[in-house]
């Protein structure tokens, strides 16, 4: 239970809205914002050159026609997993302790999802025709091809994005109202006033918001699962050895939760430090998150083992070769470092001391983020580069543009987060006040 004992409704609003409404801006914020802005420029610069020149600026080739582009996509969409899921599940299961982390977790989801959504378009040879994936009446009298997982993916992402934004915004409304009421300047008042959509805190408003949140939360959970199952199917529906496996959908959902929680952990620790939110985001939160991470890590480890087992059990020459090639082939270093990051490192979380020391958790979460990126790279590239005919085997080497877009996308993510923490309450004041009310009631 978060230690709100010392707080009153007023002090909560004071503390949290204060972060937003203070006139001055912290130095660390300015610096990191500058850095992220730079990377954001790199990101969009690279995209501009990509559209102008073609996907040939990446290291792609035949047989490796997907590499960083799809790796980044899966990585980001997995990060987008946790936010909505955490808050939705905690909301449904009436876990008040989650209130303090759900807000930025949702923000994280929205931003990561927005970025993830870019990559399927970026990776196209002719991106200006991406809308051909939508079924709309057209003079060609053609529809998209419903058998293709890419079409399912298109809809899954779209639905998830819309829902995440709604869910996030719904939570924000009362806080915007609070900011509107507390804002000193006329400009801020108007801005937050518009964003608050005329919220006046009537009982009717609260009641409707409650039911809407419940509804969306109910929708979110299955959607979260569907999104990542479909991403899994993008590969499982292919016949490429190393992809063609029914284990993929659940495997991807687990992986997504795993990296989602890891990224959440990374940000929690930073925020907590940056804004002295120790009272609201307590060690208990970190501890719970760490447990979730550990659990998911174990699920993931299990699916790795299963993959190997299935390869052997299928007695399929190509599957077996791919499995071995991952461990012994030219990309073996990738495989083993991801095993370390994803399977070995999290085992430290068994220890209570580790779970209670933020910076260790931070380190581990970073390792996991890296590991999960490597995992997707391994999954995609090692399967493609040596498939059926030895004569067609090849290698993939990233170019500077591959890196520019990866690093740039991370920078853009940071950029959005920084804007978010500066202009939007990072913790839901409304829910905090509810929480306080609960405690009072309890005592």
């Amino acid at each position: 239970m978060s230690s709100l004992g010392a707080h009153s409704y007023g002090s909560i609003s004071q503390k949290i809205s204060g972060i937003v409404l203070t006139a001055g801006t912290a130095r660390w914020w300015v610096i990191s914002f500058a850095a992220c802005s730079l990377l954001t420029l790199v990101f969009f610069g690279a995209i501009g050159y990509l559209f102008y020149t073609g996907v040939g600026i990446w290291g792609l080739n035949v047989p490796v026609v997907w590499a960083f582009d799809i790796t980044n996509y899966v990585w980001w969409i997995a990060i987008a997993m946790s936010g909505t899921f955490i808050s939705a599940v905690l909301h449904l299961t009436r876990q008040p302790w989650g209130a303090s982390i759900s807000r930025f977790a949702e923000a994280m989801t929205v931003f990561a999802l927005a970025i993830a959504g870019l990559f399927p378009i970026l990776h196209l040879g002719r991106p200006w025709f991406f809308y051909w994936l939508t079924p709309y009446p057209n003079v060609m009298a053609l529809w998209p091809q419903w058998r293709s997982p890419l079409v399912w993916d298109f809809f899954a992402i779209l639905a998830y994005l819309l829902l995440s934004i709604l869910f996030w915004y719904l939570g924000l409304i009362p806080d915007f109202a609070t900011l509107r009421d507390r804002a000193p300047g006329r400009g801020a008042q108007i801005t937050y006033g518009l964003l608050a959509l005329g919220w006046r805190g009537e009982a009717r408003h609260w009641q409707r918001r409650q039911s809407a949140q419940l509804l969306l939360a109910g929708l979110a959970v299955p959607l979260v699962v569907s999104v990542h199952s479909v991403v899994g199917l993008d590969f499982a529906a292919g016949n490429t050895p190393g992809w063609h496996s029914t284990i993929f959908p659940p495997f991807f959902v687990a992986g997504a939760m795993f990296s989602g929680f890891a990224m959440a952990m990374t940000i929690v620790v930073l925020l907590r430090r940056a804004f002295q939110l120790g009272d609201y985001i307590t060690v208990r939160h970190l501890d719970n998150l760490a447990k979730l991470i550990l659990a998911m890590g174990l699920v993931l480890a299990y699916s790795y083992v299963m993959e190997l087992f299935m390869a052997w059990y299928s007695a399929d020459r190509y599957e077996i070769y791919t499995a071995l090639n991952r461990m012994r082939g030219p990309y073996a270093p990738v495989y083993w470092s991801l095993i370390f990051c994803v399977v070995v490192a999290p085992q430290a979380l068994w220890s209570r001391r580790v779970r209670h020391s933020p910076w260790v958790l931070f380190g581990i979460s970073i390792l996991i983020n890296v590991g999960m990126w490597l995992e997707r790279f391994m999954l995609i590239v090692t399967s493609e580069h040596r498939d059926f005919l030895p004569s067609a085997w090849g290698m993939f080497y990233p170019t500077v543009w591959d890196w520019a877009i990866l690093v740039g996308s991370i920078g853009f993510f940071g950029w959005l987060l920084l804007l978010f923490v500066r202009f939007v309450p990072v913790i839901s004041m409304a829910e905090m006040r509810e929480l306080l009310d609960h405690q009072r009631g309890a005592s």
Partner: protein
Amino acid sequence: MPPTDVRELPFEQDILSESAPLWRSLEELPERTASGSDRREPSSASPDCPTLDRRQFLRLTAASLSVAGAGACSRAPQQSIVPYVHAPPQLVAGDPLYFATAVNLGGAAQGLLVKSNYGRPTKIEGNPSHPGSLGATDIFAQAAVLDLWDPDRAQAVLHQGQVSTWDGFVEALSARISRLSQNGGNGLRVLTESVTSPTLAGQLHALLERFPGARWHQYQPINRDHAYEGSRLAFGEVLEARYHFDQARVVLSLDSDFLAGPGVRYARDFVGARRAGDAHPDPGRLYVIECTPTLTGSFADHRYAARFGQIETIARALAQAIGLPVAGVLDAPALPSGALAACARDLKRNAGHALVVVGDAQPPVVHALAHAINEALGNVGRTVNYTAPILALAEPQGESLRQLTEDMAAGQVDTLIVLGGNPVYNAPADRLFGQRLAKVGLSVHLSLYDDETSALCNWQIPEAHFLESWSDTRAFDGTVAIQQPLIAPLYGGKSAHELLALLLGQTASNDYQTVRDFWTKVRPQADAEALWEQALHRGAFEGSQLPVRPASVRSDFLRAPASPIPDDTQLDLLFAPDPTVWDGRFANNAWLQELPKPLTKLTWDNAALVSPKLAQQLGLANEDQIELRYRGAVLLAPVWIVPGQAEATVTVTLGYGRSRAGRIGNGAGFDAYLLRRSDALWHGQGLQVRKTGAKVPLATTQHHFSMEGRRPIRVTTLDQFRRDPALVAGDAHRPRPNMYEAVRDEGYAWAMSINLDACIGCSACTIACQAENNIPIVGKSEVRRGREMHWIRVDRYYEGAADQPRTYFQPVPCMHCEDAPCEVVCPVEATVHDSEGLNLQVYNRCIGTRFCSNNCPYKVRRFNFLQYADEDTESLKAQRNPEVTVRMRGVMEKCTYCVQRITNARIEAEKDNRHLADGDVVTACQAACPTEAIVFGDLNDPHSQVNRAKASPLNYALLGELNTRPRTTYLAKLTNPNPELLQTRVDDAKADG
């Protein structure tokens, strides 16, 4: 005014009144040729980007973006239709015409049928009625059409490097001629490459008559001096050996690559006979003993690597085994014990149906020995005949060049006319041709390109391409074909005939007149006109092949002592023509530069080929740079390790390291001519090799050459096959359970069968496909990235011990799977099946997710990662096939079974309500294949060739276990090893481990 009014009004006056502004706007339209009415005017591949540097990027993408705009949603540009003023006869707008002609690329002629769209030669096919072609072509003939449109061709008369005019040249020359006619032509020299053209020879002889003091020299770097010398040694006169591989049951090749050329006829004869009656295959047997792996060696039932010097010993040993009174020796080193004896027994058993052939590089005595052996076996008249040489001048070319260069050095040459060729670049280094050229008063070079020789000559005259000029040329059997132009010279080029006519003072004469007159003189029959017409139409003069000459071997040379056994401790240096750029004349042909060399699969480069053992000794790996030091000359070259290469032998291929080839050829590879000596044209000893430590990046299209036990290529021996025919194919074509609906069995069902037992790996299919389907080239750096675009690639696998591997080739086009994995994953249905079983790729629907390529087990799909098609170079646009869309950046493409040929054939058939007959549709690869390894047709026609092929027990599907039900299937390879030698096979099978 509003449209409605216009329709009401009588049309005359008011339209005129409003037409004034329109007229201006019409003038603003880009001026179009008559072909402007062809809205399918194609743009084309970009051979001028060996490396895609930044500027290249921007240039290419600028174009692609504009297309992008159009593709998305921009107003379509207004087009104008421009009809003729007077329609030319027989030309139907949009429909192609075919003309018979012939090409001779430094060897023997191939007859051609050339396709012309709106007067633009666009595609070259073989001429079935020409003995040198029989409908097939080699890679060079296929690619020749690109040379015609090459933007780097010489386009102006140059005098001392300055642009001049033809008239200016005529003036300068006639002044010179008048002086020459005073002194009887002393100091006038003409240097040609090998001449088979009767007309040209006639002109040259006329020239020598007019100027008694003049001399005609003949030299080309890949010449047949040794073969001719060999026949002189054996018969006392120079004779041309004409082989009949279709009659031979057992063939022994001593370092001869007869399957690779010249031309394609020998390959057709040999493989054709071997395949006689697929039902009961009865292949002959091919023994090959060679220094460097070749196509012929890869095709052999028994192949042995031997060092160059050992071949003569082997030949002598064989001669003795046959029972000829040979001096010295006699056991054959290098060969496994008993191999030679067994081979000799085999030859004797098949006396009269055996044949021993020798490579042009081998010294004369080996050729002579072969003649003797063939005679002893009674092969003469059966598997080999002798005729007069097809060359008009059969004197030793090396000697001829020596005289010329020495006279040049002595200052006795004041007028040198170089007709074609590029001696400054490709003459032996010790002839110092370029240096001595400075001593020549007036030097003239007639050449397609402003090349190394042009740079050092006073005058460079742009030569007319063979598709631009009249001439005649002899096939391997002497048959004369008329070389008929399809288009007027693009850059006012001149032919050798015109230049010689000028020297002969026939200023008015053009090459048509010259050729025409020559033949009316030769055949002054009444029906000369008719004969000429017929020859033009058929592409060859009936019965003009050279008559067979009686020849008997003078055995005296047999008793002559053997040449000294070469020193085994020294390194051999071998020179060979490059498989794709030959002697360098194709260095600027982008298709050939990017065509993987059959055995190394290298593109855009040559390399120093070494055996695995030698590489091990010297600690060399692929792409390591080495320093070759030979008789004082030094050369840096990258290493490529070639299994099956003779030990202690370094082979370098000629034709690279050009400095003035053009934008494609400049700077590619290294110039092996720098090491070539007049007394060691093919082989030298005492090479020193040093590893420099540097690496030279090479672009290969196949990195992995082991089959990994996946058996993409199925091989069996004849005995094995007779014992259990079904064994080889195994279950590869057993129907498997399937949840997809069966493909309909009415209408047409197109399918292909590729016979691995006939495929010699020559890659003619790849080039033919490239020419037919507007396939762009991508440049070396892109190939290194693995982005080559060939729709049909030829895979090469090795099996067995590294020093004595078995080599297999496998052409891989799209399999057109009935249950195509690529189709289900495309989100926009850009790749779909049609009702005749074609797996289609709809470029204009493709958005480039590339999922289809991921899902293609055969990896035959090619992606335009960048804007590869050149949309700027006008001359290259003109080469494009208007029947095929030119793909833009970002779309997937692949083999279509030449859907444009199918559609056009079907439309023609449907117009007169008939069903397409077998053979009505011929794919480009099938047409070009010298050995008829590719068969295409309708599965629903029970009597079609393709059905017959697929009925064979050798038929199997590639990766059949994936149950994609490919329409393209393969016939397993069948080898026929000598039972006596099977032991050795077993041995190296053990060596495989």
